[in-house]
């Protein structure tokens, strides 16, 4: 299974719920780790492991919403599926706005939970892939010299090498060489590809 490396984290203050949820998830071949509180999760869980978080909304101490907020703030993005016994609309809205994948009420709808978990794992996988490629892109960008970055700016703005050379007061050949460096370092095969990469980097 594609998500075999992903781990579903279950955070619930009640042992029977943790045990049964992990049993259910394991029965469909998922890997599971359980935590009794938000604090435990923050202290122990490894952010690098892909997967998703099944989170009880009403936890003693730090609540589920607090944990979701803290994860978002610290960049440990992990798709969250909320479980709650009391679904009031404002809380649900709050949770969804905070980026929750799903908001499920107890007692449980098992297929809905499994669907949500699979969806969340997929989403996390995509997000991680996206993050990975973005990191790669940034690394490539970081390898450009200041002059190469200036050239890149002008290339994606649609300037010709001749125009850039005139602006910098250098030869067109020099600009062409720098431009080739940029294309190679950014691993862009065309100006369009370079433009898209630059856009992803927010340039």
């Amino acid at each position: 299974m594609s998500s075999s490396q992903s781990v579903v984290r279950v955070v619930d203050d009640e042992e029977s719920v943790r045990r049964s949820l992990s049993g259910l998830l394991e029965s469909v071949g998922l890997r599971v780790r359980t935590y009794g509180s938000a604090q435990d999760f923050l202290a122990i869980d490894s952010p690098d492991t892909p997967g998703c978080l099944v989170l009880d909304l009403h936890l003693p101490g730090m609540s589920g919403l607090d944990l979701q907020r803290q994860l978002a703030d610290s960049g440990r993005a992990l798709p969250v599926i909320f479980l709650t016994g009391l679904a009031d609309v404002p809380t649900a809205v709050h949770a969804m706005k905070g980026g929750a994948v799903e908001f499920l009420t107890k007692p449980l709808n098992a297929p809905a939970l499994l669907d949500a978990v699979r969806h969340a794992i997929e989403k996390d996988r995509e997000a991680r892939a996206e993050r990975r490629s973005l990191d790669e892109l940034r690394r490539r960008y970081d390898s450009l010299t200041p002059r190469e970055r200036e050239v890149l700016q002008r290339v994606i703005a649609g300037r010709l090498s001749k125009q850039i050379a005139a602006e910098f007061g250098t030869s067109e050949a020099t600009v062409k060489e720098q431009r080739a460096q940029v294309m190679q370092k950014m691993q862009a095969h065309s100006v369009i590809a370079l433009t898209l990469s630059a856009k992803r980097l927010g340039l």
Partner: protein
Amino acid sequence: MITAANASLLLLARGAPRVIGQSLLAIFALAAVTLVCVHFQPDDPSLTAAALVYLVIVVLLSLNGSFTAAATVSIVAVILLQDLASPPLLSLSIYEPLDAVALVVFLTTALTITRLVSKMRGALDRLRVSLEDLRRAEEATRQQAALLDLTHDTVFVSDTQSRITFWNRGAQELYGWSAEEAVGQTTHQLLRTEFPAPLADITAALHEAGRWEGELIHARRDNSRVVVASRWSLQRDADARPVATLETNNDITAHKQAESALSQAQAELTRVARVTTLGELAASIAHEVNQPLTAIVADSNAALNWLAMEKPDLEIVRSTLIAIVQDSERAANVFTRIRAMLSRTVQPHQPCDLRGIIRETLPLVQAEFARHTIRMEVALAAELPLISGDAVQLQQVLLNLLINAAEASRDVAAERRVVIVRTEIQHREPQTQVGVQVRDSGVGVPEGNLHRVFEAFYTTKSGGLGMGLSVSKAIVERHGGRLWVTANTDYGATFHFCIPTKS
């Protein structure tokens, strides 16, 4: 006696001129008879004839006049006879012994007649006085009976055989039977009395104390029932033998109905307050039930998934099914506890141990306390004397105090979120009491509102009815106890209640 003596004196005083008149008249008659005798036989007047005529006069005088007059006249007659018997006339000497005997006989006879007649008249007078007394007594009795007729209470008298001998108008109005119809009937048959205790016991109590009080149910003439507060008094004769029973009855049917309606309303209010109290726990209760249900749903789906595999691991399936059974029991227990709180209505008071009641109540609020991370400290006495009460209602009181404590604690700093439940024995005259304290360190009750918290409809909760504490207070008071609140010196409030132990 005094009345009779007074009457005699009055008669004497009033009769004095009459005595003199009668005496004079009689003496005049004696003189006339003497003159006649002397006139017809001047030399030998007939002593016998004169004596007889004198006697007639004395008798007549005795009958009509006074003893004094008769006696006086008798003596005058003797003097005259003696005069007649011994000539010459107007000399006072006696010559013949025979005459002397006749005189003595005459005097004795005259005086005896006078005395006898006087005695007879005395007896007659006394009889007349007695008759007068009797007539007055009768009048008084008649007036008393009329007074008994005026009272709204029913009054009737029955003899030792329970036969009605007196029946007042109140009885007629209440029961519909007239005095004519009722008198002579057997009371308890006529009224189809329902006794609170066997009649033999009541009769025994009546004979011992001379009175009895209690509530009876009687049937009216139209077959409708009436509840009466009945008071019986036993009347005894001079030899202390019971002769009659006076029964006074007050119609308390309306009072009883109002009383029963009141107690019904109270029970209903208590029940509603209990439902409301549990309603405040709804979120926690839902959570408490949802947790095991969630586990059950997850486990059963997991079990199905395990079984669907090519080579199912039956050991995992088995342990999953065991977990399902346990969680089902847990969910069922929540409902059993709640149903026990809701379904039972008024129970007769039974001996109960407050510690047991506390232990049964704590699980009901556990989820609520956990939800707001409030710590609970319980310090129960090693042993508590039993109290007499309704366990469900006392549980309601505790539940209320615990929910209030949680409510007061939920928004304060985490270290202050502690509720302490404590029991103690208070040895106070005349009875030992069992005390329970529920102490929080929450927001507290403003000093000025300490007494107001027990008022109906006083509430600080947004969704509260304000009935919880007022109903709790009523419940504790129905158990003969007291419920009050004190402000803690640092934070929060302590609710106390104490209930006298079973004597």
